[in-house]
């Protein structure tokens, strides 16, 4: 995909993955306009389908669907560093790295939102080349999010799918990480657990391992 087309995908996806607030109708119209600039293809049809699906709901339905999809479940989370780091202390460092990335591109994330929020990263990707690089670094998270959304009723999965398609394919490491995430979920904090049992027990699912999803 050409980079200008990719930027359009990122921009539209950012809107579609944002909470449907009072500007939603206007934003959807802007998305439809922008989609006209894309050539036919999966990305365009997925994004258009999502826009149509969202536009077909009443504002209250769209809002409730969004909250139900993204706000109340860990497994469907728009904050990408969670997939790699879970609720562990590594997450704070990962977030500060993203703050740096935004600053390097000359941006700040608005107060109150985290820098790993996917619609924010998509805005960055639409505005600056570094954004796509950052998104690609979170490929595993995007794939995991996509897989989780596929299981829901709506058309959000297609939006994330279109974003993935606009990025370079997953690396071998990404695929490994995704397999691990699928088997075990996000990582658990290990600090302080060392004396809990000998390493050979900890590693073999007799206690800790058996509890993982």
């Amino acid at each position, binding site marked *: 995909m050409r980079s200008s087309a990719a930027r359009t995908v990122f921009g539209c996806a950012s809107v579609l993955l944002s909470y449907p607030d009072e500007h939603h109708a206007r934003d959807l119209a802007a998305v439809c306009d922008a989609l006209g600039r894309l050539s036919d293809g999966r990305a365009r049809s997925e994004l258009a389908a999502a826009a149509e699906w969202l536009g077909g709901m009443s504002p209250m339905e769209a*809002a409730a669907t969004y*909250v*139900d999809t993204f706000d109340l479940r860990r497994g469907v989370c728009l*904050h990408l560093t969670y997939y790699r780091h879970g*609720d562990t202390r590594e997450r704070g460092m990962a*977030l*500060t790295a993203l703050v740096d990335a935004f600053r390097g591109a000359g941006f700040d994330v608005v107060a109150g939102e985290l820098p790993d929020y996917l619609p924010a990263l998509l805005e960055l990707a639409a505005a600056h080349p570094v954004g796509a690089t950052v998104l690609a670094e979170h490929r595993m998270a995007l794939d995991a999010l996509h897989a989780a959304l596929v299981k829901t009723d709506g058309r959000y999965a297609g939006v994330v799918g279109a974003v993935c398609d606009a990025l370079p394919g997953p690396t071998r490491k990404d695929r490994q990480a995704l397999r691990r995430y699928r088997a075990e979920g996000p990582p658990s904090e290990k600090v302080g657990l060392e004396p809990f049992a000998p390493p050979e027990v900890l590693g073999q699912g007799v206690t800790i391992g058996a509890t993982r*999803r």
Partner: protein
Amino acid sequence: MARHVENTTAVHDGLLAKTGLVRAARYIQPGEQTPDGRELHRRGGRRAEEFYRERWRHDKIVRSTHGVNCTGSCSWQVYVKDGIITWETQAVDYPSVGPGSPEYEPRGCPRGASFSWYTYSPARVRYPYVRGVLLELFRAAKTANGGDPVAAWAEITADPERAAAYKTARGRGGFVRATWAEVLELVAAAHVHTVAAYGPDRTAGFTVIPAMSMTSYAAGTRFYSLLGGTILSFYDWYADLPPASPQVFGDQTDVPESADWWNASYLIVWGTNLPITRTPDAHFMTEARYRGQKVVVVSPDYSDHTKFADDWLAANPGTDGALAMAMGHVMLTEFYRDRQVPRFESYARTYTDLPFLVTLRQHGEGYVPDHFLTASDLDHDGAAGSGAQAHHEQAHDEQAHDEQAQWKTVVLDEASGEAVVPNGSIGFRWGEEGKGRWNLDLGETRPALSCYGRPGAEAVAVDLPRFDVGDQGGGVLRRGVPAVRVGDRLVTTVFDLVMGHYGVARPGLPGDWPAGYDDADAPYTPAWQEQITSVPASAAARVAREFARNAELSEGRSMIAMGAGTNHWFHSDQIYRTFLSLLMLGGCEGVNGGGWAHYVGQEKVRPLTGWFTLAFAYDWVRPTRHMPATPYWYLVTDQWRYEGAGADVLSSPLGEGRFSGKSVADLNAYAVRQGWIASHPAFDRNPLDLADAADASGKGLDEFVVGELQAGRLRFAACDPDDPANFPRVLTVWRSNLLGSSGKGHEYFLRHLLGADNAVAAEECPPGARPAEVAWHDEAPVGKLDLLVDIDFRMVSTGIYADVVLPTATWYEKHDLSSTDMHPFVHSFNPAIAPPWEARSDFDIFSDLATEVSRLAEGRLGVRRDVMAVPLGHDTPDECAQPGGRALDWAAGECEPVPGVTMPRLVVVERDYPRLAERWRALGPLIDTAGATTKGVTLPVGTEVPWLASRNGTVRGGVADGRPRIDRDDLFCEAILALSGTTNGRLAVAGFEALEERTGVPLADLAHERAGDRITFADTVTQPRAVIASPEWSGAESERRRYSPFTVNVDRLKPWHTLTGRQQFFLDHDWMAELGECLPTYRPPLSIAETFGDQRRGAPDRPQLVARYLTPHSKWSIHSEYQDNLHMLNLFRGGPVIWVNDLDATRIGVADNDWIEAYNRNGVTVARAAVTHRVPPGTVIMYHAIDRHLQMPVSETSGLHGGTDNSLTRVVMKPSHMIGGYAQLSAGFNYYGPTGSQRDELAVIRRRSQEVEF
């Protein structure tokens, strides 16, 4: 090859390469010279260190506290980089507790730490939510009403169809985000409408455990106090409140700090799991063992603390009272009868009610103990005298016309045989003539412990109730006591009654006595208890002997740590009284290293006075609508409609039938009208309108209200909880999880309070078994509540069912204070970051809500007068309202209705609704004139107000012009600290001086060494700060002395806040006698099967286990974290689990990890079985709290989504907890009241289909 230089080997190796010499340089090393030529720098080779260095590069380090719902109170340092929390460490700068003791630091535990990254967790509540259907209705109604939100709320709630539309949606999702402006308007409109239409007392706030974050608690209760809303207690509701503490000590949960465990030389851990639930403090227990401390654990299961025990006594669940009674039997036999220990006797005479005289009343062929003999019973011509010789002369005159005479208890002088009225009873506490005499100084009097062997003593047969026989009714024990005559009354001492009751035979006394320790038929011998508890008789006797002998040799350093395992039972007060008796007999209370150590839900707001004053807005309006939560929920969730038996099943066989024909709800209504217990809403009329009506009548308030009540035009709301006029309308829950954690009778909450899907299977009482007095509506209301607001950062069960969920700050995002009874330090919270997303602190949320309510109140509510019915309060003169502990009902014509004496005190206060927010934000003027009072001691607030004005700044303009500001959380914290003795040395000394006037004993010196100290909020930010000894608490503490309760009472002869002024074995209230609980005794768990019948459902051949259902504190889902926190869940199986004994499991075909269902008439829950031999047969354990939406499948039994641990429980109230108006048995917030016990329940367990749906 040896290298003399390190790190730069690569460069080094190349140094000599050009020479062709294959050898690294040995004597020279490379580097870069600095421009000034003074240094040579070598670079590289240290990249590994960079990683660690990076981790420690922060923009700021902020101290905060793991301010969780536990008693840890652990200080942590939070590291922030680029506005993001990146790291945290334990703070290790606690002040030392001095040489000779282990230190407190470091503090913190895995559960607290497991929360830390919740700040950014996707599971966090990030936005304000309203259920979509409600928000649409509200918007539409607002538009239809010309933009009037209050009219909109009135319209929606008045329309049954629209109300049902959003109420039945509760628990079914459909939340949408809302802006703060809109959601606050909705919530404020609901409050304003409710105040106007039904009364402010129809709004309520529920929050818990202030000590963990005092300002966050206070923000909401201050709002409700100014509004006139009902403020619900929590400690009794949790069943963590030990009613035995007020009964015996007249004080609620004053316990030693954990460093004092180190001072104990014998420790019995009895029902509290120290390493699990007191993790940062447990090291004191393990360290004390190296000092020679013996540890005995009493626990039915092989629990985590059992492994620390030198002796493990595995008493059956709920039978601990039997074991303790037998231990008491051994102590009394060996240390009081066979051999006398001088210290024990002198302790008993001075600090307990054992020498006090009790009248005996003829009952059949024998006698029963009746009431304490008081000065009013004495023959004024001769028999009386005064213990304090200085007052001897005036004593006779005094007693002739002493209004307090009925409140002065009597002892027998050992030498003269005369009845003597010693100082210190409650009769000396409030009257003018008691000034300087409310103390335990016995002067020349040596009270006789016993009448045994006294000249003229008669041997009298007494009948005493026993409850170890018969299903619930018990039986009668015939024992004997020595008795003497005082005037025309036959009296004996409490000690003699105790000896008789415990079955310690003395020659010449009538009755049936045990033949010896091995007499299994006679209560309360070691062999007798063995049949009940399964603890070997010899082990019980040995531990009792060791415990007492240690107390003798160490002068009282025997300690019992007790908790939920023994306190969550219906008869927990009796269980605890049997424990406390051991401690009193051993002279252990009020001694460092000795006494009771109650550790469940206990907490300690160290800066108590300042916090209490501000939290309940006593700086503007007094009092507030404090309400014990147990009867509140019992009534509003209609659990009273499902009783299986009348209250008389609890009566003693020697009772007088006071409860016959009455239900528990009837007894509650009785207690309410006697002024014993708070009940809000009080009347079936809006209290604002009631005040207007009283004004209009031209009569005084008392006269008007009494007249209306007697005419039947006005009724107590407790008499008709299902009248829509009496429904709670608006409820705000913050800092707690009412529905998922503490809500006993969870399914009843869902049905009646919320109108949501529920799994209640119980039948309502049939006609004939219904309350006699409380009104019965044929159709029970569902969905009573109009609005449930949940303020939390987690989506717990309460949020799932709430109409509005508001996102709040965590403990790294706000200013607050935290303290605990486990250590003496005051901690601060400080914001490392601003609350992310849309979250706001509890403080800011209530500030904003107050503003919005004030805005909407303008033109709608105005300034109103509000009538409050206030119960007869403990630690106020009202505790001497109803002498003799006699239950006299004015409604039955047994006495006159007199507000403040035979019924609740009536108080009118002014509510200025449009100025509510202005008041909320400023320290009010009432504190200047009325001071600030805790436990009957008024701290004379003076210079503190101008100090706060200059420290915090003052308000300009409005109703609070010139008053100190408290409109920011840090300013609020500053005010709490400034107005408390523990944190302000001047107030500590002044408070002690006030107490000296009353007691006549020196006290102020306890605080002198820190008289000039003032702990400011900035101090607590710098370092945790040790508090100052203060009259707010009963123990002395200093750098040299660990806190232990009642050390001031023991060292300084300051009375306990009880009837006798001493710790009490004997309770002589009529209702105590009716229950057969005048003395500590063993009462088995309630017989659920007897009352409610077989709980099993389904095919008779289906294998099912009926088992005792215990819900102890979880390691994985309560306190520091909730069930949605994966870290701690990872340490066990993750989802809901019920522990089942392996033999039981085999019988019903359950293998480990199978899915099972647990149900009874109250509801159902689903879990995996954890099959283990560590749990005894016949008992299952489900650790609480289990949230119903987390990994909980759909139930086969109910067809609904899962349940919580409390789906199987139900509120059962004990009548004795309703007693009031009588000394220590008087009302107080989180002090005395019915507890929501939950351990007496039975569950049916069966295997279910292993295919589960979520």
